[in-house]
């Protein structure tokens, strides 16, 4: 019986996990490092404990034991795919809410996981994993980190001359991000779509898939917009890919929530890419279209119970899209920005969900990933979901830290996005989404001028008005 869970993460995912735990009557325990002392996730939980690092497995397990927590939820990133961490939990009698340690280890090794999938009959992308280098005819190729994910330690290499430097640089980045400097080379599939399947497995041999998510809109190999169902996946293809995803999960006797990532080429052939043994950033679109709460399923599985649904019970209704809200300036090479959030007015209304790690007054520092939160919409059709997302982005006011809200609006407004013509090179081809209007309307100067010369170093007009000072001066 799980009564208290330590959430070994920060930001939006820590808060999202805590929401389900509270619905289940489970106590929540936050951890935080010094720069996060005043972070929203710390305030959102029953208890909180300062730690030296979100990556210190020993310290976090000790914190769980000392606080009387029964389990640890790792979220995504940080220690979520660290097998030694899962083992350390188990040996100290703490339930790790995720797959068994051996599954995490095997799937965390992108080289080993390819071997297992090939054996299980799941199609894989050709790769050079034994230190050999691809012949010149195979370029461009991708350099990938054996121990990584999320695009970190990944490089697209167009000529053989650049390969060694790319591998060295990827290796350094991989070592700092994952503590594993091994890299390998993989064939680059042109105009690929990124399609992944959500899977769930319990300890009673039940394995199901919860349909696909399309995550083809990426920058620097990281997803920024995700949706389900995929406009590229027919009912027949969904059946075949779903079967392959379940076969992949069964090959490792998967227990927990996980994701089987595939790439789909322009001729609708699919290849296993990797398996993520954790909750994905983009899991909400699956929840919006199925009614499942994936965190709740994770807790049930970790408690040794059966999945709450069978494959035949599952149906998707409508369409869901997620936009990742980042503190970054897309128009300036996606450079991250830092600062204090001065205005935070999220959108609301039917079919809108916001998973946010920040609120007004939150400080966004350079210490962490620039993801601020995720805006998710649901509507009966894809076209209606796009209209709803445009409206929601239009209504979303987040000032004080530069962010990508306007940029996301331009991306989903392109003709190709609306037609569902997506692939991972979408942003490289649609350079127009990086252009902002050159002329500023007179209305903007008017609005900027009504507050007058601000007396303090910084102020929002809107607060001055609310305080009554402005009208009385």
């Amino acid at each position, binding site marked *: 019986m799980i009564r208290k869970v330590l959430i070994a993460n920060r930001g939006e995912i820590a808060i999202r996990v805590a929401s389900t735990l509270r619905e289940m009557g489970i106590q929540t325990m936050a951890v935080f490092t010094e720069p996060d002392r005043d972070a929203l996730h710390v305030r959102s939980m029953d208890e909180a404990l300062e730690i030296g690092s979100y990556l210190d497995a020993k310290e976090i397990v000790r914190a769980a034991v000392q606080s009387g927590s029964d389990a640890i939820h790792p979220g995504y990133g940080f220690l979520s795919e660290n097998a030694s961490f899962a083992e350390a939990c188990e040996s100290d009698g703490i339930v790790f809410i995720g797959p068994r340690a051996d599954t995490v280890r095997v799937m965390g090794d992108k080289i080993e996981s390819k071997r297992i999938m090939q054996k299980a009959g799941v199609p894989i992308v050709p790769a050079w994993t034994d230190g050999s280098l691809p012949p010149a005819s195979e370029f461009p190729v991708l350099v990938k980190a054996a121990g990584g994910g999320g695009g970190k330690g990944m490089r697209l290499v167009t000529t053989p001359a650049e390969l060694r430097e790319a591998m060295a640089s990827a290796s350094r980045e991989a070592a700092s991000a994952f503590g594993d400097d091994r890299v390998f080379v993989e064939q680059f599939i042109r105009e690929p779509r990124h399609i992944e399947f959500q899977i769930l497995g319990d300890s009673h041999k039940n394995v199901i898939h919860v349909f696909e998510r399309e995550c083809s809109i990426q920058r620097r190999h990281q997803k920024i917009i995700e949706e389900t169902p995929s406009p590229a996946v027919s009912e027949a293809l969904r059946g075949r890919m779903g079967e392959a995803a379940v076969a992949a999960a069964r090959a490792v006797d998967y227990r927990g929530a996980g994701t089987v990532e595939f790439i789909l080429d322009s001729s609708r052939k699919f290849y296993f890419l990797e398996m993520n043994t954790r909750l994905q950033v983009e899991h909400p679109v699956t929840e919006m279209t199925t009614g499942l709460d994936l965190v709740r399923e994770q807790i049930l599985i970790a408690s040794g119970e059966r999945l709450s649904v069978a494959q035949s019970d599952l149906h998707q209704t409508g369409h869901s899209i997620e936009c990742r809200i980042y503190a970054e300036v897309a128009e300036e090479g996606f450079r991250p920005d830092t600062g204090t959030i001065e205005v935070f007015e999220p959108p609301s209304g039917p079919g809108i969900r916001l998973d946010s790690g920040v609120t007004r007054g939150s400080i966004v520092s350079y210490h962490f990933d620039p993801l601020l939160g995720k805006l998710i919409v649901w509507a009966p059709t894809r076209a209606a979901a796009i209209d709803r997302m445009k409206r929601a982005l*239009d209504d979303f006011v987040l000032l004080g830290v530069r962010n990508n809200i306007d940029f996301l609006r331009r991306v989903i407004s392109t003709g190709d996005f609306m037609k569902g013509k997506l692939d991972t090179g979408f942003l490289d081809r649609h350079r127009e989404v990086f252009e902002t209007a050159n002329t500023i309307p007179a209305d903007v100067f*008017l609005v900027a001028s009504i507050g007058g*010369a601000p007396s303090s170093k910084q102020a929002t007009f809107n607060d001055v008005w609310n305080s009554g000072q402005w009208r009385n001066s």
Partner: protein
Amino acid sequence: MAEFMSTRELHWRAGKEDVSCRIDESQGVGSFHMSGTTLPFRILDSSHIEISGKRHRFYVVHRHDVSTVWLDGRTYYLKRAKRSIDAPASEVARGGDIRALMPGKLLRLTVNVGDEVSEKQTVAIMESMKMESSLVAPRTGRVLEIRFKPGDVLEMGAVVMVVE
């Protein structure tokens, strides 16, 4: 309540252009003058305004000399200009300065003071939000000065080194 009308003149820089405007208002009602046009306005509440009879939602944040304006779902950045339109543009970057492109930590220097560097050569590696990025020389020349050491935390725009 006092019924006096206040008048203010403001100067903005948007991109390369300087813009001067005047605003007359009393109790949230007034008119705005810019480039020969006059726009009547009425503030409805802390985030709604009527301009020439049309309603808009808005937010404004003033931070140092930059004003961020959110108007009807779009965000704009304006810089407050000096009183005189003829004032020189804000500090012009010197050609040989190599600046941090984002806030973050300096990981490594790949050159020393006195080294000859060529245009686009990598001179330093930074890390920001768990991502590495390279700083490159803007032109061929000799490294005159290095102002930071590995491990230092840099603000965006900080001059890391100067090339002759």
